[in-house]
């Protein structure tokens, strides 16, 4: 056979764009985009730019985390905000009531979200498709109801931070910058983690589960274990940045902590940019926040901005299910090396 000869051993070029080749090019590009965003407020010197970029970085971190579950593993979690809320609550409690430092509180927030994901993963990840998605909504609502009635966390009133706390971080205005840079660092870290998951053996197992879970198991992928760890990984960063977000906010209440539509917006961002790619959630978050910013300030759309987000999700699913990055990769194969 002639094709046999083509194949044989002398094959030096490794042609697996996702697994080998020059994968770091894709990561570098993605990180560069984020670094530019982080530096942008320094260039303009305006607080308002910093706040805009903070929102985008927050979205990128949430979307990249969700992407590990949604994009790589193929499991839709509608209630992912539960990890943001729970992490935020645990961290805020330690910070405001127990007097922990922000760093330790963030760590505790991330770990408690990871623990919740681990326990949930063992219980509900055996559900597939719509059943899993519904279960995640239920968990978010149940957690909100629980916190609403949990006295140590302030019940329905929530908790507020003593203003003195900011003094440890150089006063309120200094603390805002510190929070911003911390957010930037976490975003870079979350995207890097997402990249290494995508290009690892563990990630290959997740992709196999996404494509056909039963076939993956027949090939030896221990799906229950892999899915649980994917869920845990996707919960850590939302838990950490929950603490950071509510530290900046100064107060925490059940409603903003467990806001279901926040989850859905995150899904829109992942889908818009391209689920299953590393760069996708970054692009998607930027685009979505741009659109949202426009809608919120426009006279016509400001009250129906969520309806527009819903419509957008519908259009993506119907016409560009692969998202922006997925579409580009499909349309221009030579971009696959760069756009990961």
């Amino acid at each position, binding site marked *: 056979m002639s094709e046999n000869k083509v*194949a044989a051993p002398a094959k030096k070029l490794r042609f*697996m764009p996702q*697994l080998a080749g020059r994968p770091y090019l894709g990561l570098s590009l993605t990180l560069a985009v984020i670094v530019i965003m982080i530096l942008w407020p320094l260039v303009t010197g305006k607080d308002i730019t910093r706040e805009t970029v903070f929102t985008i970085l927050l979205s990128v971190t949430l979307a990249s985390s969700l992407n590990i579950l949604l994009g790589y593993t193929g499991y839709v979690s509608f209630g992912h905000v539960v990890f943001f809320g729970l992490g935020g609550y645990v961290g805020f409690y330690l910070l405001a009531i127990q007097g922990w430092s922000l760093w330790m509180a963030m760590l505790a927030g991330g770990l408690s979200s990871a623990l919740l994901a681990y326990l949930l993963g063992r219980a509900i990840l055996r559900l597939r498709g719509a059943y899993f998605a519904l279960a995640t909504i239920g968990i978010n609502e149940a957690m909100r109801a629980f916190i609403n009635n949990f006295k140590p966390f302030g019940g329905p009133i929530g908790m507020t931070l003593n203003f003195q706390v900011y003094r440890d971080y150089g006063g309120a205005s200094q603390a805002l910058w510190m929070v911003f840079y911390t957010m930037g660092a976490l975003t870079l870290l979350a995207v890097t983690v997402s990249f290494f998951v995508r290009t690892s*053996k563990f990630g*290959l197992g997740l992709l*196999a589960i996404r494509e056909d879970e*039963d076939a993956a198991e*027949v090939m*030896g992928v221990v799906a229950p274990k892999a899915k649980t760890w994917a869920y845990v990984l996707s919960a850590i960063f939302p838990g950490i940045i929950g603490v950071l977000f509510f530290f900046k906010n100064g107060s925490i209440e059940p409603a903003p902590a467990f806001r279901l539509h926040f989850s859905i917006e995150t899904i829109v961002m992942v889908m818009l940019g391209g689920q299953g790619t590393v760069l996708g959630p970054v692009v998607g978050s930027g685009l979505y926040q741009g659109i949202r910013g426009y809608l919120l300030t426009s006279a016509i759309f400001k009250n129906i901005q969520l309806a527009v987000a819903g419509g957008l999700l519908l259009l993506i699913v119907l016409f560009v299910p692969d998202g922006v990055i997925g579409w580009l990769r499909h349309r221009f194969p030579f971009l696959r090396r760069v756009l990961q």
Partner: protein
Amino acid sequence: MILQVEGVGKQFGGLQALLDVTFDLPAGQILGLIGPNGAGKTTLFNCINGVYAPSAGRVIFRGEDVTASKTYDMAHRGLARTHQIVRPLNELTVRENVTVGACFGREGHTLGKASQIADEVLAFVELSDRHDQLAGSLNVGQKKRLEMARALAAQPYLLLLDEVLAGLNPSEISRMVDIVKRIRDERSVTIIMIEHVMHAVMNVSDRIIVLDYGEQIAEGSPEEVANNPKVIEAYLGDPELAEQLLNE
């Protein structure tokens, strides 16, 4: 003995899909598994590799009782299979598909080593020129060879082939039969194959088991089975037609 199946039965509600199937398989053989549609051949595969837990009996693989193990446990123990209806990981490339087999199979290789194995196995099944294509874009014949490559990449002791020849044209069939023989001879993998293409299965099998309505009605060399009147009656209904098909 690489595999011992002892009195395996499987019941789905009121349907007895398998009843008291018993056989031993020595290493290095190709065992053909034939029978009319619905005879329970794929169900037997599913009971061996852990998709179903048998309702009765035991499965012993390489001396260990593996009855009702999980499919991934069986994969780690060195059992690989292909599916009757192909199940490619559509959005992954051909090479990534095969790499999954090597990464998570018996030897659990790292990514780098696994993709080397993938290249080697793809060359073996003559699919190298497609390595960078998405698996979903292959044609049926190529998908069947991809299934085979994925299973082989796991470097199994025992390979279950479920109708790898179905839907292939005559030239593809002879190519595939050649590959199956080479798997046994060059890679010393033991094989059980379910097949409907008679001349092929008669040609490659060392031994054949015939199932009908979940029961084992005959076992023996291809000649013995082919001349067994019970088989001819159950399988083809008409002994003359059987002879005609075998002569093809």
